């Protein structure tokens, strides 16, 4: 169909040059710019995680002073949350795929999309500046009054970095919402949309509604530090817990900014790798919206041991439990979809299965923490650390990796070695469990987070955890190596190497600049597998 060289010309081909990339308005190139930037930030965040884990090898402070340790975990958190996890799936895979899945040439506002990447870079540079000028020690949560009165580190600059990066994510979300509402191809009704689009739509709602609140909150911290306009200042009668309310009004839903797009990825991968219509399409679609909405009603569970009223705590505790319902709906539907599907065990499948297992553990331990009474015991222990890493790393990053392995042939036009893909999935899964499994036990025994020294009897578990972290790191490094290798030496990918449905697989690999050679019209629902489609011969493996 696309025989001539001109027809095969992809978005990667022309125009070449740094300027053509830095000034591009093509959503696919912007996605690639994001992919490179978040990879750099991930490596940096990983570096600080390494510092933390190495320090915790022994019960005493050996490598880092208490001060440096504070800075290491703060920077790990700030970088990973605001500069890796929040943009990870939406700004890379979402940016790349949503216009294609909607059958359109680009996002509604290509220039704003580029602006969002520049804001991200500016925010990241400010944060790098903070690191260069000595680091930050408030924890990624910026809790007042320490962040306003106590800390001697450049909190205002860090807050500015987060503020700017926040606007980058607002712009991404805003572009997605308008695109999904106004740009869908003819025939592409809401219930024909791939679930990845639904999930990213729900994510965008959270970005739009939550991010401005954290923006104004960090701005207030900045005002208090620079102008002395003390809104949270206890000396003036201000309530530092108000900061926590405003902060978690965003930052709890932000957890769903991180995991919802990952859930969307998993929905695509499960249906694709099982070659089966997803079980309960509309339930999965609406559970994304339900998670987005319920996510706004539960922030108080971060304040159970603050001066928050115990009655409010009860309400927040009950609503927090409700989030388990839509999450369980998704998990059951994925599992049922794979059941009796013709599952092909290729790299993406390994990441999917890993995701479901880890997300399950992360979700169930979340119920422990939502329980008001139990949380009093577990607050600020390693149990919490383990729980949210099971969601953020075991969930969000596993899904991101799975998505990357699934769409890599489409994005780059190259195949990676499938064996290595499986190996790294297994390595990451094993390393992850070894890292964070022991932390549940440590937390239950009472080891508090954010301390650089601990009693001797906890050393075994901490050594296990650090050992796991090194395996985890090796897994990520391995992925980085063979994916980079594949860019240059990988086999050329066919248009549809997995033999799956979806608009993105109808166009060439990699897609042309305007995504399709002819404007698509959709006449069937997503994942419409009448019979198992024939696999093309150039399959990975």
């Amino acid at each position: 169909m696309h025989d001539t060289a001109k027809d095969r010309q992809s978005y990667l081909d022309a125009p070449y040059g740094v300027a053509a990339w830095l000034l591009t308005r093509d959503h696919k190139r912007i996605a690639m710019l994001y992919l490179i930037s978040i990879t750099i930030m991930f490596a940096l965040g990983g570096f600080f995680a390494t510092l933390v884990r190495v320090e915790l090898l022994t019960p005493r402070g050996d490598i880092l002073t208490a001060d440096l340790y504070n800075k290491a975990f703060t920077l790990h958190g700030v970088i990973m949350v605001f500069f890796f996890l929040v943009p990870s799936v939406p700004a890379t895979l979402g940016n790349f795929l949503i216009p294609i899945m909607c059958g359109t040439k680009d996002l509604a506002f290509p220039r704003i999309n580029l602006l969002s990447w520049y804001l991200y870079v500016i925010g990241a540079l400010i944060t790098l500046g903070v690191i260069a000028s000595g680091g930050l020690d408030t924890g990624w949560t910026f809790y007042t009054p320490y962040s306003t009165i106590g800390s001697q580190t450049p909190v205002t600059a860090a807050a500015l970095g987060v503020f700017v990066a926040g606007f980058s994510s607002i712009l991404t979300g805003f572009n997605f919402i308008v695109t999904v509402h106004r740009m869908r191809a003819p025939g592409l009704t809401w219930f024909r949309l791939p679930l990845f689009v639904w999930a990213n739509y729900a994510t965008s709602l959270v970005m739009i509604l939550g991010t401005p609140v954290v923006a104004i909150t960090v701005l207030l911290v900045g005002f208090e530090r620079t102008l002395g306009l003390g809104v949270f200042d206890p000396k003036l009668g201000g309530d530092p817990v108000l900061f926590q309310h405003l902060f978690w009004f965003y930052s709890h839903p932000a957890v769903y900014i991180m995991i919802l797009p990952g859930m969307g990825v998993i929905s695509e991968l499960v249906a694709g790798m099982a070659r089966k219509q997803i079980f309960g399409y509309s339930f999965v679609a609406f559970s994304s919206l339900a998670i987005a909405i319920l996510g706004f009603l539960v922030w108080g569970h971060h304040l159970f041991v603050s001066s928050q009223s115990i009655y409010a705590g009860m309400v927040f505790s009950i609503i927090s439990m409700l989030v388990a319902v839509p999450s369980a709906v998704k998990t059951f539907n994925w599992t049922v979809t794979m059941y009796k599907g013709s599952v092909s065990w290729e790299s993406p499948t390994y990441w999917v299965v890993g995701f479901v297992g880890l997300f399950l553990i992360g979700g169930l331990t979340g119920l422990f923490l939502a329980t008001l009474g139990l949380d009093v015991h577990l607050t600020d222990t390693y149990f919490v650390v383990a729980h949210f890493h099971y969601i953020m790393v075991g969930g969000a990053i596993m899904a991101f990796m799975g998505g990357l392995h699934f769409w890599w042939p489409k994005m780059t036009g190259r195949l990676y070695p499938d064996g290595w893909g499986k190996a790294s999935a297994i390595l990451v899964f094993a390393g992850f469990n070894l890292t964070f499994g022991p932390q549940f036990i440590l937390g239950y025994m009472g080891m508090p987070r954010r301390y650089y020294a601990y009693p001797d009897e906890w050393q075994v578990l901490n050594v296990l955890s650090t050992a796991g972290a090194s395996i985890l790191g090796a897994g990520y490094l391995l992925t980085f190596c063979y994916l980079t290798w594949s860019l240059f030496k990988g086999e050329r990918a066919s248009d549809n190497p997995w033999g799956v449905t979806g608009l993105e697989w109808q166009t060439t690999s990699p897609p042309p600049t305007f995504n399709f050679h002819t404007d698509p019209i959709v006449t069937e629902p997503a994942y419409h597998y009448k019979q198992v489609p024939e696999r093309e011969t150039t399959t990975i493996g």
Partner: protein
Amino acid sequence: MSHTPHTVVSVRVYVTIFVLLMVFTGLTVLAGYQDFGFANTVIALSIAVTKASLVVLFFMGVRHNTPLTKVVVIAGFFWLFILFGLGMSDYLTRPWIGVPGR
């Protein structure tokens, strides 16, 4: 479907809304100088909500806009009330439990 999705509203409508907004501003100041006790805030906020609704419906054209726009506007204010409502559920119930020393 008409060619332009947005109806051209007559100047008369805009001027009427303008006059109403001015009258309400005068009213809120006048009411402000009277003391109705607890009702002061209620009156002031009711007038402000009325004025804001007039601006949203007429000046911002939501009256003639798509249902989607209406949903977006309502959602915006709804989320504001989630923030206020759940936030105040803490502050208003704090005194319920007798904490010694407070």
